[in-house]
């Protein structure tokens, strides 16, 4: 789900948003704040986190990335510059969060009861998290394939110039995509906060994993991201089984090997 958001931002809006993890962090902390201060159910706060992160992403694209886009002479320069700008946002968002919420890690307990399912025990909050993640991905997939806006997004991803000629407001679609990517990250963060500890610097780790997943699947290919996530999950489990300390090393190795052999990814164009 995290990777799908990133894939959308890179595939369509051409921004390799390395501050993606910071949106996850934001979603997580919003949920945490609402739960501990007001006692709002984390699942209800999904409804709040989504629009907030969406708006933030949308505005960011409208103000910052569009400017960089019009100032850049070629797509390559735009990709480089926008990536650097998003590095800037890592610093900004992380430290704002530290100033607001403090640097320590937080957590709360919600639905932390064991549930028996098919003979094995699971924590209820993880099951809920998994269920909602799958549902959100499904809804999102339907949105992309079945609606007119989804069609416009796919058109803009394939060929922005032609899409513009066909009467699609490309700039708006790109901003929409960036916002949707942020929305996915925010929702993911919200869900994550139910079962993991959260802290302002948590984002980067997720960003790196998301980048790896997206590269494996093919930058800009949303189906690829699903496949990439699946492959990475399998490899992670196998390596963790053999040598637990090396799973991150394995991720990086696969990532780098893939960049060397086929930088465009499994389903890349």
């Amino acid at each position, binding site marked *: 789900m995290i990777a799908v958001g990133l894939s959308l931002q890179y595939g369509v809006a051409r921004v*390799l948003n390395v501050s993606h993890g910071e949106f996850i962090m934001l979603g997580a902390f919003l949920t945490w704040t609402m739960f501990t201060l007001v006692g709002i159910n984390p699942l209800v706060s999904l409804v709040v986190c989504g629009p907030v992160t969406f708006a933030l992403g949308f505005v960011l694209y409208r103000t910052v990335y569009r400017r960089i886009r019009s100032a850049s002479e070629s797509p390559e320069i735009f990709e*480089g510059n926008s990536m650097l700008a998003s590095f*800037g946002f890592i*610093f900004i968002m992380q430290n704002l969060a530290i100033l607001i919420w403090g640097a320590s890690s937080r957590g709360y307990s919600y639905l932390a009861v064991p549930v028996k399912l098919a003979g094995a025990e699971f924590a209820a909050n993880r099951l809920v998290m998994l269920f909602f993640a799958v549902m959100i991905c499904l809804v999102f997939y339907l949105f992309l394939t079945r609606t007119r806006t989804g069609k416009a997004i796919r058109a803009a991803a394939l060929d922005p110039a032609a899409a513009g000629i066909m009467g699609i407001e490309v700039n708006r679609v790109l901003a929409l995509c960036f916002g949707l990517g942020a929305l996915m990250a925010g929702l993911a963060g919200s869900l994550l906060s139910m079962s993991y500890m959260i802290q302002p610097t948590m984002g980067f780790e997720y960003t790196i994993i998301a*980048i790896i997943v997206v590269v494996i699947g093919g930058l800009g290919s949303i189906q690829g991201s699903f496949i990439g996530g699946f492959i990475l999950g399998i490899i992670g489990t196998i390596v963790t089984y053999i040598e637990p*300390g090396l799973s*991150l*090393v394995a991720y990086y190795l696969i990532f780098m090997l893939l960049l060397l052999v086929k930088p465009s990814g499994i389903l890349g164009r």
Partner: protein
Amino acid sequence: MSTRKGFSRPGSAQIALFLILMVLLPLPLYASKYTVVLLGNIFMYIVITVSWTIFSGPTRYISLAPAAFFGVGVYTAAGLGHVLSLPAIIITGGLLSFCLAVLVGGITLRLKGIYFAMFTLGLVELIVTFLRWWEVNFSGTVGRLVVSVDNTTVYYVMLFILVLSILTAHLLGRSKYGLALRSIGECEEAASHTGINTTLLKIVTFAVSASFMGATGVIMATRWTYIDPRIAFDLDLSFMPVVMAIIGGMNQLYGPILGAVFFTYLEELLITRFPYYYMLIFGIILVVAILYLPRGVGGLMQMRQAKRPEGKHAHTSN
């Protein structure tokens, strides 16, 4: 000719540099210990930024690997500090970074644009996680001790590396290799068609710039006395030179130096009292610089001379 004017006039710039050097040389004799340490820090960032710019400036390959090369130097100091003399470790550290850069450059420099940036970022993280795993499982410790060296020695070694790196950057910028690197940045295919061995040139330049970072890593490690993988391979060291070079402007030699001095001083002012504000300001400046100052402060100064044609046509004005 606009970018090269400053070099062809033998007067002002060289004299200014010479004067600055004359002030810096006897400094530890009269300045406070604090100033010496601070200047050592500033030198470190200048070296890393300048050597980053040697490769990434003209070729436009965004390398996020400085932390890796720096860390190699740090670990060389930790591993060989008890065995070899200081100059020997510094040279070893530089050489090891050089070798790593040749290896990495050899396999990765055909990646373009952000793929290269992502690969180099992955490299740093790969080394950190692997090293941590290795230390825990085989040597039983996470951190290591480094033989410490007194501040004055650190200062002079840093000054020496600094002069060496600036000299290298200056000479390279003037030579035909500098021009060749720039043409790689403008259009790599055209560069290779004009008979430039682009691969070799890229790898060698990348490795030279890495060896400066490695040497810096060795000498700065002696100041920390204790290191672990995360300290040695600090990702901030990968981002800092990029930001410093962007803000200073990469077209002139003094751009990265200005950027490095400015940020190190800002860090010194803010980081002890408001560490988070420093990073916050750092991020804001980065975004603003990319938005409004694509050529950096140095580029701003240059803009007064002539309005250059943009991007792909820039070679006509060089």
